């Protein structure tokens, strides 16, 4: 610790702190344009000049100067004020004074500083810039004329997003922020650059001219897309509609950093396509109905079905709602058939980690990523499914020196990170590869824990030499990876699971857990296993126990039951199986043939169109409750806007149904929350903004994983399913922002294959499997291996589920 004096206040800070950070600690705000908490000091704007007693004679930039013992700093002397005023005058020399039409007005740091320092007239005079404004993409507008060259956008794109889409161009007065070849912005549109821009040089186009900043109500909540559990601030206009997301560098573990979905995918909340009233099918047509009619119909049909009723729920609902739906189905209706995420989507955690770790949860948290020495990422898709975790990995690698080891069937952004070691394996061979690593660890005496005889015996067939041809990697690479993993003091295994990743099943989780157990990596900081689950409350759905109880059908059996008549009534809460579950034809048939189908959703989805009763329910922005992030961080949400139309929160809907079926409705959400066993130590009312981690008590067991055998008929391509960076489930299809940059189904194909089949980028191709055919756009991607195709599963207009029936690897033919 170093002690110094700032404006007569004593402050003790860490020795690597800067004067700026030290001042902030004692509540002295030094004006600055080029600083962000997350970014490294840069010193571009020269606004933070201060006087230091020991360095008299010149002014010192506070943001880049490290503190020293006994330093005496003055931040508001006349000389400092004069210098700052001149800096502002110089900035305003070229900055256009178009605040009335600039969306940044009211939130603009330059505007605020000009006001604070009373820069009313400019003693200097110069021409304004005449840069062309970039309207080339639908999300980010770049107006270089307003730029103050603080470099924050350049740095965040490089340091955190690891995209490097922006850079300084030219010299001197002609300096500007440029893109590659000065063309249109070519990036992943996460909008991080917009979030840190202190002026209106970078603006969010979906929000353009929608409202002034000061007219927005800022509502803090938790993002409703993936399982990362990012905190976001919604900008609400007239207490009615969500019009933007607002950046707050002090929010959440991620310091306000968001991905493209979180930042630009909010439009579904206040979409005009939202369901406004309940619908009941009469004479084959869905017609508007009153809540009372709909609920009494549902209650009577569920009662009639009794143990032949079933429910599929989306893990996007709150813990309390899932709990209540479970109560409704199990206790009041009397059925054990409840499930979510198509059954296999949660198997990696519910069954895999549940058996291997003794608890259906990850041993590590997202906070461990940056504390780790070695990160073993299974599939580069981690970046696509959980981009903010991807940013954490990038920062761990670049700032903390963590080694990144990747096992993946395709290259990706993660494998381009500095020092990343990628083992490009054959699709479907992840378990075999992990087993081989375990085998090496045992054979070379690198294992800390003694392997059980069963495991040792089972691993006999997985020597690196035997595994190498199965996995398509060299034996040496396996041995090296095993040695690196075992040698790392803190090693973290990450994998992603969910609807699109049937390969991330219980076996993969067992195999991964065995590595952690053998290597002694469990129960340590920065170490262990972190399963990245797909939806915002996937972990919560498991903690609540929204999985089939003893004798209950899982999701696949429920759908089969619908077809064969053993399920009479199906309650689908938020899921969209017609699009997102594999085997579209079978799912469609099941939902067509079930006697009574209720769908509670925000939109009239493809599934809702088949329903007998459709209930309009609230989005995450309209309700109260808790979400559990993938690392068991329980976070509370509060309504940002009133319910859209006559939609109701599911909590109310299920409560009323319970009542109609003769049960007693719990009085409050807190009461329901208290019944969730894994959260027994948490008080609902005391969950703060940061959330609370529910404890994970590990009882590790070495489970023998069964490596799947993946074969594809000769001449067929291996089709992998997965998630696109721009989407999460099917909800993001209702977000205009995400649809603007990724709006149609596609398949990624390697260049050699494309050349062989004479397919050009953007061509329409037909994928055919045993299950069916689908026509999608082809994208030639350098990240694909030869013979492997990749298709995201989100899109409704060309659903990949029409060729994919739930296998990790599907054999398909591709033709123009």
């Amino acid at each position, binding site marked *: 610790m170093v002690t110094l004096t700032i404006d007569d206040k004593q402050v003790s800070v860490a020795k690597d702190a800067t004067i700026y950070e030290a001042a902030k600690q004692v509540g002295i705000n030094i004006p600055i344009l080029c600083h962000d908490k997350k970014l490294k000091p840069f010193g571009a704007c020269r606004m933070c000049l201060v006087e230091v007693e020991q360095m008299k004679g010149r002014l010192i930039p506070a943001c880049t100067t490290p503190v020293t013992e006994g330093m005496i700093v003055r931040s508001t002397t006349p000389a400092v004020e004069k210098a700052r005023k001149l800096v502002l005058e110089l900035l305003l020399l070229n900055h256009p004074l178009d*605040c*009335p*039409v600039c969306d940044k*007005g009211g939130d603009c740091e330059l505007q605020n500083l000009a006001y604070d320092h009373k820069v009313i007239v400019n003693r200097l005079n110069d021409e304004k810039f005449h840069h062309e*404004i970039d*309207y080339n993409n639908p999300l980010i*507008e770049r107006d270089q004329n307003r730029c103050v060259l603080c470099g924050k956008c350049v740095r965040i794109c490089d340091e955190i997003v690891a995209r490097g889409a922006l850079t300084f161009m030219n010299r001197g007065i002609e300096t500007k922020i440029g893109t590659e070849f000065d063309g249109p912005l070519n990036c992943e549109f996460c909008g991080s650059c917009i979030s840190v821009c202190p002026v209106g040089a970078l603006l969010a186009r979906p929000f*353009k*001219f*929608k*409202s*002034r900043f*000061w*007219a927005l109500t800022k509502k803090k909540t938790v993002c409703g897309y993936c399982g990362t559990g990012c905190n976001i601030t919604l900008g609400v206009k007239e207490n009615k509609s969500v019009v933007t997301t607002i950046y707050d560098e002090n929010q959440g573990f991620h310091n306000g950093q968001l991905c493209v979905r979180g930042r630009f995918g909010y439009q579904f909340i206040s979409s005009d396509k939202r369901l406004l009233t309940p619908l009941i099918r009469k004479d084959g047509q869905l017609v508007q109905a009153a809540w009372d009619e709909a609920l009494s119909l549902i209650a009577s049909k569920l009662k009639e079905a009794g143990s032949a009723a079933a429910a599929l729920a989306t893990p996007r609902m709150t813990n309390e709602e899932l709990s209540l739906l479970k109560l409704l189905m199990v206790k009041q209706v009397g059925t054990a058939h409840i499930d979510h995420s198509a059954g296999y989507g949660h198997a990696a955690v519910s069954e895999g980690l549940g058996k291997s770790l003794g608890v259906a949860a990850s041993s590590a948290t997202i906070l461990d990523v940056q504390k780790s020495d070695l990160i073993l990422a299974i599939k580069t898709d981690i970046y696509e499914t959980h981009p903010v975790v991807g940013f954490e990995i990038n920062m761990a690698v670049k700032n903390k020196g963590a080694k990144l080891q990747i096992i993946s069937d395709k290259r990706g952004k993660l494998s381009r990170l500095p020092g990343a070691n990628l083992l490009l394996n054959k699709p479907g061979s992840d378990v075999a590869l992990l087993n081989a690593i375990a085998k090496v660890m045992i054979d070379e005496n690198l294992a800390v824990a003694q392997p059980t005889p069963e495991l040792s015996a089972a691993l006999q067939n997985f020597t690196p030499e035997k595994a190498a041809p199965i996995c398509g990697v060299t034996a040496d690479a396996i041995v090296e990876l095993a040695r690196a993993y075992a040698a790392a003091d803190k090693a973290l295994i990450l994998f992603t699971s969910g609807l699109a990743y049937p390969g991330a099943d219980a076996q993969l989780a067992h195999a991964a857990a065995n590595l952690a157990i053998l290597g002694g990596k469990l129960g340590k900081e920065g170490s262990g296993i972190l399963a990245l689950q797909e939806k915002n409350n996937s972990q919560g759905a498991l903690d609540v126990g929204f999985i089939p109880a003893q004798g209950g059908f899982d999701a696949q059996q429920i759908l089969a039951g619908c077809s064969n008549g053993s399920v009479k009534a199906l309650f689908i809460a938020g899921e969209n199986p017609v699009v997102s579950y594999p085997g579209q034809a079978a799912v469609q048939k099941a939902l067509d043939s079930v006697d009574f189908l209720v769908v509670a959703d925000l939109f009239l989805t493809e599934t809702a169109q088949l329903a007998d009763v459709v209930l309009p329910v609230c989005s995450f922005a309209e309700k109260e409750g808790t979400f559990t992030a993938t690392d068991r961080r329980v976070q509370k949400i509060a309504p940002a806007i009133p319910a859209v139309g006559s939609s109701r929160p599911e909590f109310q809907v299920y409560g009323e149904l319970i009542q109609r079926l003769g049960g007693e409705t719990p009085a409050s959400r807190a009461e329901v929350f208290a019944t969730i066993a894994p959260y027994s130590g948490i008080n609902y009312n005391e969950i703060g903004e940061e959330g609370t981690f529910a404890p994970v008590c590990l009882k590790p067991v070495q489970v023998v994983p069964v490596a799947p055998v993946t074969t594809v008929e000769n001449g067929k391509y291996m089709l992998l399913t997965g998630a696109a960076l721009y989407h999460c489930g099917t909800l993001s299809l209702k977000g205009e922002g995400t649809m603007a940059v990724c709006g149609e189904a596609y398949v990624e194909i390697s260049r050699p294959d494309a050349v062989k089949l004479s397919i050009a980028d953007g061509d329409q191709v037909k994928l055919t499997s045993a299950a069916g055919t689908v026509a999608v756009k082809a994208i030639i991607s350098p990240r694909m291996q030869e013979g492997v195709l990749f298709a995201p599963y989100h899109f409704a207009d060309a659903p990949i589920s029409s060729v994919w029936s739930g296998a990790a690897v599907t054999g398909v033919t591709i033709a123009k």
Partner: protein
Amino acid sequence: MPNPFTPIMQGMKITLGHVFKKPVTLMYPDERPKVAERFRGLHALKVSHNKAKCVACYLCPTVCPAKCITVEAGEDANHDKFAAKYEIDMLRCIFCGYCVEACPVDALKMTGEFELANYRREDFIFSKERLLEKK
């Protein structure tokens, strides 16, 4: 005791004096009042180059103490900002003139128009078309 006729005479003197002065009463509506130059009557949106000068900066609805101004911005073909909707609810307006004062582009003024009576409530809501300056 003072003379009881004195106050009466004094009053009569004033009355008599007014008989010879110019009358104050205006025979409205046959006669029109002369409105002062800085009178704050009905608003008008100034026009320049055949379009409203207003850039929809929202300063007038922000400053308006009566909250009678509704603005909605739009983006035109040149990506410029313009007022897609500009409405003043005259029933709420207190004619304080803050909106005119706040306008950074001098797009708004207050005219001498004071005859704002109407038969229906909705007629008091002045849309952008009604507010545009008549030349």
